[in-house]
């Protein structure tokens, strides 16, 4: 009887030690994400419109030649084929978005996504066009955050932190007149 009790005590002690030793380490590479956000946002916003009207050519080896012109990343930059292609699309789209941002119709949210602040003064056709533009941009931004997170081995559950860091850069580089969300729900005009 006494032996059985000792046995139970031993099992309990072992279980306690095992569970006490379980440590969950979650490392979030904030500095790397910040650097990636700076580089990517800078690239998207500073080279706006330069590639408008260029048709992308696709051939079996086209990536050998066409990519290099658009690619200026150093070894330290978070980049890959998906990120590069998303950046190119967003760069082209920014020239269409910027006028709406300057008019205060579209704002940069704290979640790293665009938000329509107002549709005043727009006809239905323009409203539809702007909403589609914002929807397409946000879809690409979410794909970008996912790609950056994957590249830096960040778990999907931490993507909101990636979004928040990117949001700072989008807001910093937003054109004058654009709304930016300073605190949750509190929008100010730049």
């Amino acid at each position, binding site marked *: 009887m006494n032996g059985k009790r000792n046995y139970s005590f031993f099992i309990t002690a072992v279980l306690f030690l095992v569970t006490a030793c379980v440590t969950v380490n979650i490392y979030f590479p904030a500095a790397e994400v910040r650097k990636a956000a700076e580089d990517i946002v800078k690239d998207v916003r500073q080279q706006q419109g330069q590639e408008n009207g260029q048709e992308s050519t696709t051939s079996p080896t086209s990536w050998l030649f066409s990519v290099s012109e658009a690619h200026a990343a150093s070894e330290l930059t978070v980049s890959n*084929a998906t990120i590069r292609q998303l950046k190119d699309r967003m760069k082209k789209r920014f020239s269409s978005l910027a006028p709406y941002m300057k008019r205060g119709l579209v704002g940069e949210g704290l979640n790293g996504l665009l938000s329509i602040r107002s549709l005043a003064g727009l006809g239905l056709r323009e409203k539809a066009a702007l909403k589609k533009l914002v929807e397409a941009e946000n879809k690409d931004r979410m794909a970008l955050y996912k790609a950056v997170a994957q590249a830096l081995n960040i778990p999907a559950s931490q993507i909101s932190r990636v979004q928040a860091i990117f949001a700072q850069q989008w807001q910093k580089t937003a054109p004058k007149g654009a709304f930016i969300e300073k605190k949750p729900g509190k929008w100010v005009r730049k």
Partner: protein
Amino acid sequence: MEGKARLSGVKGLFLAIFMILALWFLCCSSLDASLLRAEGPQLHAQSGKALWEILRNDPNNELETKKDGQGLHVKLRLLIKGLAGSRDEDHAFEDLDLFLNLKADGAFFSQAQDFSWRFKAAWPKGQLLFFPWFLDLSQIKGSLKAEGRVRRGNIYIDDLRLYGPFSLEARGVRLPFKERGNSSNYLDVLLGAGWELRADIKRTYNLFVKEAFSDSHPFVKDFGPEGSFVAKGLGKKISLTLLGQVLYKSKKFIEGLKAAVYYPLLGEMCEKGFVSWHDIFLGPIIPKGIFRTPENIGISGKKLPVTLCHDRGSFGPLSLDLGNGTISFGQATFLFSRGTLVLRQIRIAGLKVHRLLRDIPLEINVDGSLPEARFQGDRLVFKGSLNVKVAGGMVQIKNIWVEPYAAIFRWGADIFFKHINLKAITENTSFGLVTGAVEGWVKGLVMSGSQPEAFDLLVKTDEKASRSKKISIKAIENLSILGGGGGSVSFLGQLFKEFSYSKIGISCRLKNDVFELHGLYRKGDREYLVKRGFFGGVNVINMNPKGRISFRDMLDRLKRIGESSQSKVEVR
């Protein structure tokens, strides 16, 4: 009692409200009356009542009433200009002109409430937003004619004809207003009615697909379906018929397309149909420069069985002759509720890729069996493997996946190869002749669009294959360029055309746009890409100790290959 007057009184108000409600139901069903406003030159009102005040004072609007033993007879004619309304920022109409005619006869206000009606409406201009759809009604002028009865709060439509972006004709429709909100009632509407919808596919696709979704899904811009589509209510099922063709970037893609399928409205039934075509031309959808003669590559004369059930659609089997081989699948099932696709029994037999593709100096024969492909999240994952016979060796492609709906189309696989004869691969290329055999793998290959995103490559001499091992000067120079060298061999080396070697061993990893290139054989701090034999030959040494090359540098190196070494080439 008989009279002809401008709109007045409670009855007129009732009729106008009824008419507007009916119009809302038919056009933009759930608009809130309090949000209705008119913004045209004549109309400035914020509510249905105020709007009514304006309508009744407009000389263009007319109401005729007559009462006899059979009840009240009413004729109403309205011209509304510049009507605008919105429920929210996604649902609105603006600048809408409406011509409305309503004739009603019977007992409007008795308990039984039974009267017949006839209604005509036309919209010569206006804009309608039902996001993501935007319709400019001046481009798609249309009209609606309907007649029927109202009895105990339900509207019965004996005959309805709608002409606009498509035409809809319906008979025997009962709209159960009193029981609205119960979806089974809407099923009853479909089951009980005889109706037919006809559409010009090009116009409908442009209006409802291309304009609405080309920003979020750019590929829809490239497709151009043409022809006619008819949907018909046949009691417990809907018949869907399509005749036409599909263009891709304005070039013929599918010719002689015909579809006749049936969708059952009740859960326990499944209905069989088919999709057929005269020709499918793959040329337009394959990027230029891949196929030998893209215009001649097609799939002709096929009929695909289609079965539609209430909650799923399945099609197959289908076998396609391509490149002297066959690509087939047993069945594909699409589950409507989950939006997911399952493909079964995909087989490739005797596909001769070299007969299809351009600039392929090798025979490439593909066979394989992929028993199942199923969505795991956004990724369609294939079970099984493809076997490729090439250059006297064998390549196995496993763990294939595609992400068809991703923002950027991606696909990937793991590739294993062995006994690959280097002579067969290099003798007709500008890389330079190399003999011998190699084995290795490309693990974790990820392609984003047509660009490589990640892979882990290993190539090494296949010791089991007994072949002579020689490497030409040109190949040495190109290999040294890849390793980061200048690509020139010393004067002494130039005296020879080729050298013997003992082993080739290269690993290359691409991740985050950085290549890591290493030689597999090490001696001290030296890393050999190519190692000479005991009695002489050539060593190619990787002089980049970290082996890290940026994506851009690698592209530059690949471009330089063929043109002209820091890589040190030792000749002995």
